[in-house]
């Protein structure tokens, strides 16, 4: 609500109240004055006729009194004029029919007690009447009169009724005029006040408008300083403030643009963060970011998984505890720590190395500094589990080595096969032609024959080894049937060597796509090796099942309870010509042949052995044909 309205709302009721009060007070005062003035006229008239009514009042003669009453009646334009006897009897009345009546009403009884003129406002026939009365006293003593008051003879009362219509009309007229004057005066005062307020409020309105403009972001406003009073000072201060605001405040549009840009930047940042987070979490490597103080800034889940850090430890954010836990897992924590320390002292350096865990895992570690511009704010550590890769690399190397040896051996075997056949033929022919007494020749010739046969067998094995890829016949076979067939070949040998054969053939692993002969070759070779490893007898287990480790593969498990293979030799057992058997007892091609066949089938073979307890070969073969290797 505007101040002007408030002032109006305050002053208007006040003015109305004051006006009403003045009117009420004026009404009473005017009433008194008018009544008194009217009564005075009545008193005057009564005073005039009073001395003349003496005789009439004494005798009660109407004809004497009535002309006097009529004269007063006409003079005053009275409603009535009457002469009353002391007992209220109407001696004469301008309304002649009243003559002789006796008034006993309270008003009459009251005026009959008047000792001096008096008046009273009464209601007469619904009209307000000023009832004026004056006692009449005898001019001379009359012994016949008995109505005495205070030593004077009371003849009665002259009574005049004057209509108050004119008085009331006059009063109303005066009150109307006073009201008009009050309204006019009040209106003029209000107008002056409003004009004064308008003059005072005008600069304030300007200030208000300008303040609103500033609120809308328009700072190029100023208000005129028209006075030197407090409002003028306020206007000056406002202008100064607006000027300062204009110079120091960024406009709303600019601010809006900035907000939009910031929102965009924030959006981009969120996008980047999201990308960063997604990248961080989707990588196969463990990532750890630390600041220049060595405190962990962030890490991905893979890092925690790789280092097998429990959730509660990760949540604790206790970097010292975390480091201790990490170091505990390593085979050489000193090197690890030394490298880290060195990088702290050389923050700009990048590094790459690898370290091993006590459980055999191998991690590669790559580290480079984190920069914002040119400033280094931390370091990113990337850990990659290369255990499998290293293993595969080893296997690949082995495979290549075996392949090279195999080819070499096959070439050699092919070349020496014919000369060897000739040697064996002549040796066997010569031995057949020995006669008794040729004992001196028999031993060398038979030795040649025997060794030639052994060489022939070796060459045959080598030739078999070299022909594997040439004679493959892949087809749907029943693995369990192939195993039964192979085991029947070695069961006699096992029995003589006191080895118990145990079969656990899984039902779901019966059909695979493979070369049956080669699969049987795998089983026979592994069985021979195992039987050889148990010179004192033992248990040889054959087990087929669907692979739990590699879906889509069957697993053939061959486990013996022999002496086991020393750890140092475990890597060499698949190499051609490697054997632990005595010379002449083995060719060293059995396991390498197994390895070659498994490779050709797209499978894998693993070895676990513990000295004194036994050895376990685990062969994985694909159930369905493996995809042909990509041609380079």
């Amino acid at each position, binding site marked *: 609500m505007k101040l002007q309205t408030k002032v109006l709302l305050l002053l208007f009721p006040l003015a109305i109240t004051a006006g009403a009060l003045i009117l009420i007070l004026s009404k009473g005062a005017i009433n008194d004055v008018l009544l008194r003035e009217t009564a005075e006229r009545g008193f005057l008239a009564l005073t005039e006729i009073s001395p003349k009514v003496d005789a009439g009042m004494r005798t009660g003669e109407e004809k004497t009194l009535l002309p006097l009453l009529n004269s007063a009646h006409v003079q005053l334009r009275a409603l009535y004029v009457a002469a009353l006897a002391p007992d209220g009897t109407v001696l004469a009345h*301008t309304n002649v029919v009243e003559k002789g009546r006796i008034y006993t009403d309270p008003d009459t009884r009251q005026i009959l007690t008047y000792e001096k003129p008096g008046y009273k406002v009464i209601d007469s026939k619904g009209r307000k009447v000023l009832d004026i009365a004056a006692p009449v006293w005898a001019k001379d003593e009359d012994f016949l009169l008995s109505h005495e008051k205070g030593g004077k003879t009371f003849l009665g009362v002259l009574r005049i009724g004057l209509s108050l219509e004119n008085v009331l009309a006059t009063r109303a007229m005066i009150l109307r005029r006073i009201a008009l004057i009050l309204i006019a005066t009040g209106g003029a005062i209000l107008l002056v006040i409003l004009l004064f307020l308008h003059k005072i409020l005008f600069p304030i309105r300007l200030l208000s408008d300008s303040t609103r403009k500033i609120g809308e972001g328009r700072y190029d406003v100023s208000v005129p300083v028209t006075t030197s009073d407090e409002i003028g000072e306020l206007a000056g201060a406002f202008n100064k403030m607006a000027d300062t605001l204009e110079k120091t405040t960024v406009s709303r549009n600019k601010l809006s643009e900035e907000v939009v840009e910031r929102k965009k930047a924030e959006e981009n940042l969120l996008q980047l963060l999201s990308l960063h987070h997604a990248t961080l979490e989707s990588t196969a490597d463990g990532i750890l970011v630390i600041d220049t103080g060595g405190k962990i800034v962030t890490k991905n889940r893979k890092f925690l998984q790789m280092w097998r850090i429990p959730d509660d430890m990760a949540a604790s954010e206790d970097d010292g505890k975390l480091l201790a836990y990490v170091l505990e897992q390593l085979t050489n924590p000193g090197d690890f720590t030394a490298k880290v320390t060195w990088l702290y002292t050389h923050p700009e350096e990048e590094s790459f190395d690898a370290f091993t865990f006590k459980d055999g895992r191998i991690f590669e570690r790559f580290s480079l500094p984190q920069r914002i511009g040119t400033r280094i704010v931390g370091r990113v550590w990337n850990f990659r589990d290369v255990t499998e890769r290293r293993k595969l690399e080893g296997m690949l190397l082995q495979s290549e080595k075996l392949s090279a040896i195999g080819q070499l051996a096959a070439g050699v075997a092919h070349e020496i096969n014919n000369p060897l056949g000739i040697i064996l033929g002549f040796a066997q022919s010569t031995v057949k032609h020995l006669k008794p007494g040729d004992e001196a020749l028999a031993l060398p010739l038979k030795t040649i024959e025997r060794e030639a046969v052994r060489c022939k067998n070796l060459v045959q094995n080598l030739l078999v080894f070299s022909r594997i890829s040439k004679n493959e016949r892949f087809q749907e076979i029943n693995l369990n049937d192939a195993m039964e067939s192979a085991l029947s070949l070695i069961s006699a040998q096992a029995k003589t060597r006191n080895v118990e054969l145990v079969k656990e053939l899984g039902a779901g692993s019966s059909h695979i796509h493979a070369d049956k002969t080669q699969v049987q070759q795998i089983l026979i070779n592994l069985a021979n090796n195992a039987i050889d490893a148990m010179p004192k007898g033992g248990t040889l287990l054959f087990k087929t099942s669907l692979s739990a480790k590699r879906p889509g593969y069957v697993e053939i498990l061959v486990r013996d309870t022999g002496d086991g293979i020393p750890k140092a030799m475990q890597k060499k057992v698949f190499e051609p010509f490697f054997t632990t058997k005595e010379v002449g007892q083995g060719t060293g091609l059995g396991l390498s042949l197994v390895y070659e066949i498994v490779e050709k089938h797209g499978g894998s073979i693993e070895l676990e052995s513990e000295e004194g307890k036994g050895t376990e070969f685990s062969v994985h073969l694909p159930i369905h044909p493996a995809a042909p290797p990509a041609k380079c």
Partner: protein
Amino acid sequence: MRNKQPWLTVLFILLASAPRLASGAEPAEPAIAAVLSSEAGPYREALAGLQEELGFSVPVFSLSRGEPKIPDSARIVVAFGSKAALLRRQDRLTLVYAMSPGVVIKDKNTFEVHMEPEASVLLSSLKKIQPGLKKLGILWQSPKFEAYLLQLRSAAAELDMSIEDSRLEKTAEVPGRLRILYGKIDAIWLPPDPLLLNADNLTIFTEFSRSNNIPFFVPSGGLLEQGLASVTPTFREIGRLAAIAARSALTGQNQKKIIYPTRVELGINKAAAAKIGLKISEETLRQADKIIP
């Protein structure tokens, strides 16, 4: 405003006849002469009516200017006012007198124009003003009024009315007689009785009417302020009737000795009517010649 026009006419006539009044004679042997009791306005108005009706000017004599010298050629004297009527005259002269309410001249060559309207005209007019009027109260004192009272009673009977009259011996009896009539009458009419008509009585009548809500009919339009209504002939009409009587007498035609005016002027005091609570119809108000609002 209506009553101003006659006065203008009177003024015009007076101005026109001023030289003749000064000389006191009609140049060409006038047969009719007029005598006024005074120079009072009503007489002048009646004179104007006389001359207007006659169509010519007559010698006019005012007693306020001395003894009139009626010309020898005059055969008829028209007297306006009691003094003029009672003036001694030659026997050869025929007298037509008016505006002399208390005067009774019993002579064969005498004709009187009364102030009272013809009785039926009066009562029917009062009835128009106050349709509920049944009993009309009348106080009278002058013996001359007795004849008119008879006519009034007769006319009242025809109009289903009655007259409650009371003859006074003395004027002082008015209050007492009014008290007697109070409660018996519907209205009161004050006749143009010179014995009764004075200021005191008029006040008494007026107050009696106003205080007791009894319509008061006054005998003259000039007194209308004191009463409710007036049903009276104008002075001009009286003059006109006097002229007719004089002309008839001059030509020897038979005519009534007493002439009552039938053309009346109706005056109504609306304020008085309102005070006593009497509702006057709009039609009556439209017919009124004079209205006090």
